[in-house]
């Protein structure tokens, strides 16, 4: 009974993280039913990944910007602009793809530096700067393209949008074995990592997660990865863009969790003044965040252009809203300081499944937009509700009189301890 209570208490204390995950599963199951099983057909799962990849790439940069307490409204226009630049470089100037891709990412970095300069060093709110950027880079897209689409692109670039890793068996086998190897390998790596982290948390007595929940969560995640592997492998294998995306998610998760830069980003969003007074170069961090956003927007623009096989004047329109929604549905706080890359990915997938599922059902964009808007509102509304209930702690568990940790001990006059005060490492 007490174990159950403990598990329940833990779940309610992490209602947000658990809730978002459960919501994704419920939405998948709902559409699986409504579409008569089409949603999870191998071909559709592959489509889902490829269709949403550029939004997910943008959401990585967006959640970082939002954690620092800013916003970027320009990413859609920047992605469109970079598509146009890629078109000019590759189709008009005849640059090879291996030169054009780094050049485009560099242009993205410059775009980010431009916006970062105004936001970090001049002090104009990001909302204004990137709203201006949204117009500026849409305008530049139109100018670059002279209002006409550029097409076609060479196969090497198109592979970035719709290509797959090579099939080891030459297409003779039912399952695509490279995908199986990668999927199983990644699952094993994930399991090892999860166990390792849990062991370390236990060692330092930081573990609050009940064993039952840990087992359920880890098993479930592993099974999910194996199912997706199976589905991908029974169609055409691993999309190249999925490999790119996976690498980005792993790298940026590590960056945000473990790097000095990531920590500084959370600190700035959590309390700007305290961060400044702790010696953090807040302007430099903000600047770099926007440069990074520019590079990721450029990458998203390349993937999108590659997928369409054309650079279009309206390319990237509305991407900013989808990526911002992904970050917020994924648990980022409007006031900054809270959010994760993984959360933004789940948020992006929820939006993606909604889009895809409703399209299969033949719902028009009218209803799609209506429903997506409501989902965003409910997700963030739930956050605020949760926060207000617990008086700022984000802890609905208190309602059920469940305690996950002992209450802070009462302060009492303590005698001077004889231990050395400075326990720092040298």
């Amino acid at each position, binding site marked *: 009974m007490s174990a159950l209570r403990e598990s329940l208490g833990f779940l309610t204390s992490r209602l947000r993280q658990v809730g978002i995950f459960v919501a994704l599963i419920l939405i998948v199951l709902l559409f699986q039913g409504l579409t008569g099983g089409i949603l999870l057909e191998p071909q559709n799962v592959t489509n889902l990944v490829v269709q949403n990849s550029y939004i997910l790439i943008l959401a990585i940069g967006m959640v970082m910007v939002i954690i620092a307490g800013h916003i970027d409204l320009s990413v859609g226009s920047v992605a469109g602009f970079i598509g146009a630049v890629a078109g000019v470089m590759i189709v008009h100037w005849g640059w090879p793809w291996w030169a054009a891709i780094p050049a485009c990412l560099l242009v993205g970095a410059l775009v980010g530096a431009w916006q970062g300069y105004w936001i970090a060093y001049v002090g104009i709110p990001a909302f204004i700067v990137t709203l201006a950027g949204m117009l500026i880079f849409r305008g530049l897209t139109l100018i670059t393209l002279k209002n006409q689409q550029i097409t076609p692109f060479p196969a090497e670039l198109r592979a970035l949008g719709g290509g797959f890793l090579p099939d080891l068996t030459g297409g003779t086998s039912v399952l695509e074995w490279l995908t199986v190897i990668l999927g199983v390998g990644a699952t094993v790596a994930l399991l090892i990592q999860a166990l390792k982290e849990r062991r370390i948390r236990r060692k330092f007595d930081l573990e609050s997660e009940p064993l039952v929940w840990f087992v359920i969560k880890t098993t479930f995640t592993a099974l999910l990865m194996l199912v997706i592997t199976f589905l991908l492998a029974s169609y055409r294998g691993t999309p190249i863009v999925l490999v790119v995306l996976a690498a980005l998610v792993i790298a940026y998760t590590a960056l945000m969790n473990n*790097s000095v830069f990531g920590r500084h980003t959370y600190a700035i969003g959590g309390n700007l003044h305290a961060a400044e*007074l702790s010696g953090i170069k807040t302007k430099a961090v903000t600047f770099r965040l926007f440069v990074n956003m520019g590079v990721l927007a450029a990458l998203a623009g390349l993937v999108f252009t590659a997928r369409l096989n054309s650079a279009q004047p309206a390319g990237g329109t509305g991407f900013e809203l989808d990526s911002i929604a992904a970050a917020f549905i994924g648990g980022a706080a409007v006031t900054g300081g809270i959010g994760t890359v993984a959360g933004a990915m789940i948020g992006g997938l929820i939006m993606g499944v909604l889009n895809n599922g409703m399209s299969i059902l033949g719902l028009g964009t009218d209803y799609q937009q209506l429903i997506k808007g409501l989902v965003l509102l409910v997700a963030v509304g739930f956050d605020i509700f949760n926060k207000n209930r617990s008086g700022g702690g984000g802890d609905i568990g208190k309602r059920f009189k469940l305690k996950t940790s002992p209450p802070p001990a009462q*302060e009492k006059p303590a005698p001077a301890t004889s231990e050395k005060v400075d326990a720092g490492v040298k």
Partner: protein
Amino acid sequence: MNTPILQMRGITKTFPGVKALQDVTLDVNRGEVHAICGENGAGKSTLMKVLSGVYPHNSFDGEILFENEPCNFSSISDSEKRGIVIIHQELALSPYLSIAENIYLGNEQATNGWVDWRKTNLEAARLLARVGLDENPVTPVQHISVGKQQLVEIAKALSKEVKLLILDEPTAALNDEDSGHLLDLILHLKGQGVTSIIISHKLNEIRKVADAVTIIRDGKTIETLRLDEGQITQERIIRGMVGRDLESLYPDREPNIGEEVLRIEDWSVRHPQDHTRMVVNNANLHVRKGEVVGLAGLMGAGRTELAMSVFGRTYGTATSGKVYKYGKEINTATVSDAIRHGIAYATEDRKHYGLNLIEDIKRNISLAALRKLAKRGFVDKNQETVVANGYRRSMNIKAPSVAAITGKLSGGNQQKVVLSKWMFSDPDVLILDEPTRGIDVGAKFEIYTIIAKLAAEGKAVIVISSELPELLGICDRIYTLAAGHITGEVPIAEATQETLMHYMTKEKE
């Protein structure tokens, strides 16, 4: 003469865990200027909030009689209807609205919901003449000086047919000339029959205008001194303000003072918005190895401003002066420069400037010196946990684990997290700004013990505090500040609350 206009009897106001006011009595006679004196946190402002209805009538005990009728105010507008108007320390004017609009804000001169601008501006001009302010009523308030804004506040009070005017530290933000003008106006209004209550730290001002002085200490009325009985003298007021027993709330320590670590020379800082105001004026001070140096001063004396301007110019503009460490001039123009030179500043405002309240203990502790824990830009989280656990033990931070969110800790434990953060940055000089503010007595003792230990380890410690007994209990030497000037340097052997208060209220020659 001598008919009472206001009688407050047995006022007791309790906040969770604190008795802010205890059986306070205040008698104000019609047509007098009545000053209220007391140390920071003595309960003066709380008393005025009780009187003006900021705290509604059922949230405290005791009775208030105004013009011999009981008062049951449940909001400021109730007290204003009776002619009691309070002007707060922070002016409540809207900077973009005109003088006239501000005067009639919430009391618009309107017919059927439409503002009568002619009447508004004419009436405002009449009120401005009464307070002696020569400005056009349509001028936006942001275009006039703070001193004049104060007069606009008074004009606003007059527009409400004020009988009792309460001024909370009205001259704290004013220069000498504006202060003089304001005090003259108070006397002028007294001639017109307006009774005033003035809260002030500046004893020479009180001597200039007050007919009576009530002294409050630790939430209790000490005494009321009357001018006509010849009782208002500086010594008497100071004795009343500080006369409490020095309790043995402080750990014993044997100071072991070494060479000079930090010296600040000719340090001057101007107000970030009002560039004509010198917030710190030509300050010189130094601190030695193993020494605890106090900075005493009343509200607005420039203590925090001095500390923050030294710590990476985080306050003020046009900062000038030199900082020396071990005799060598150092540059502390940014916070990271200051930290690199071994200076740490623990802020007086933990919640806004000290901690990331939505983050856990270990990440707060590591923040100022994250690079010590990082290899190639990546933080060693295990090492971070080891460090944080070390501080949790040595500082006696009471929390379930170092993964606990700092926003959920008590004030004392939050302060220990802030101190841990700065100790981990391994400073030579620690500036602790109000290290025991908002902390209960038991936790205070722990903080004092930590300060003593830091000094014993050879750190130079500067403590800023509004509580004189605290400074007397833990310091080796105390500087006093008044209006941005260092007015005294007192070795602990010669320091008493009276001498310190004397220097703290000393005006520049």
